[in-house]
């Protein structure tokens, strides 16, 4: 029952996009929402594209700290942003990954091309 209430909460909140961005130097930090599915992925992808264009972004750091659910739509976003960032010579990294997100990233083979860092501090050090 507790679980159910939690999900109902998420459902209500997902109406207002809880996605946040931060820009540190030429790094775009994407604080991914609690659930990353097809519905949220569309908003994230559009938001990132705009910011890359307007702020001379070179690297993207996906921060999964809040994220407890992700499906293949999230994989699609990460791969697609990886491609566009590689085109401009930048880097995509991820951080703060929980167990369920980790299983999906592994299954999709994301770690063959994208690095994961334990926390934001380390990720930011690497992305310079």
């Amino acid at each position: 029952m507790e679980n159910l209430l939690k999900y109902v909460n998420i459902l209500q909140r997902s109406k207002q996009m809880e996605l946040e961005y931060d820009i540190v130097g030429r790094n775009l930090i994407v604080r991914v929402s609690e659930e990353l599915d097809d519905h949220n992925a569309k908003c994230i992808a559009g938001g990132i594209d705009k910011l890359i264009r307007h702020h001379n972004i070179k690297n993207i750091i996906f921060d999964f700290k809040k994220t407890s659910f992700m499906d293949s739509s999230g994989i699609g976003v990460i791969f697609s942003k990886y491609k566009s960032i590689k085109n401009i010579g930048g880097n995509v990294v991820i951080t703060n990954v929980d167990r369920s997100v980790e299983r999906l990233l592994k299954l999709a083979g994301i770690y063959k091309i994208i690095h994961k860092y334990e926390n934001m501090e380390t990720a930011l050090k690497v992305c310079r």
Partner: protein
Amino acid sequence: MKYQNEMKVEFDSQSQNEAFARVVISAMVAQLDPTLEELSDIKTAVSEAVTNAIIHGYEECEGKVHMLCKIYDSTIYIEVKDYGKGIEDIEKARVPLYTSKPELDRSGMGFTVMETFMDEVEIESKAGIGTKVMMRKKLESIDK
């Protein structure tokens, strides 16, 4: 332990209903006291099937997605059905990384995710008629 229950829902093919479908299936599975991992597996598989029905089955059109869930003893059976465009080549669709919509940032991992997280995944589909995805998983946590 013997337990039997069944439910059926029908909802519009809108992307916000992907979260709705996950809530519904979680509530159903929660009755069985699953492990967090089992719950997450089932939610993810359902999310994949429902998303496929919405973006591939119905594309831009409106339609209804049907979801059925049955519990027999410790096994959960889930069916997700659409009356959309159907799949012409099911074998090809199941190949990891195959997607018919690369322009939409799809990764082609949906069926692979369902197959990994569920014990069994069957697809029935006819072009122009629709698609039915049937999945089964035995919850190990229940026998204890």
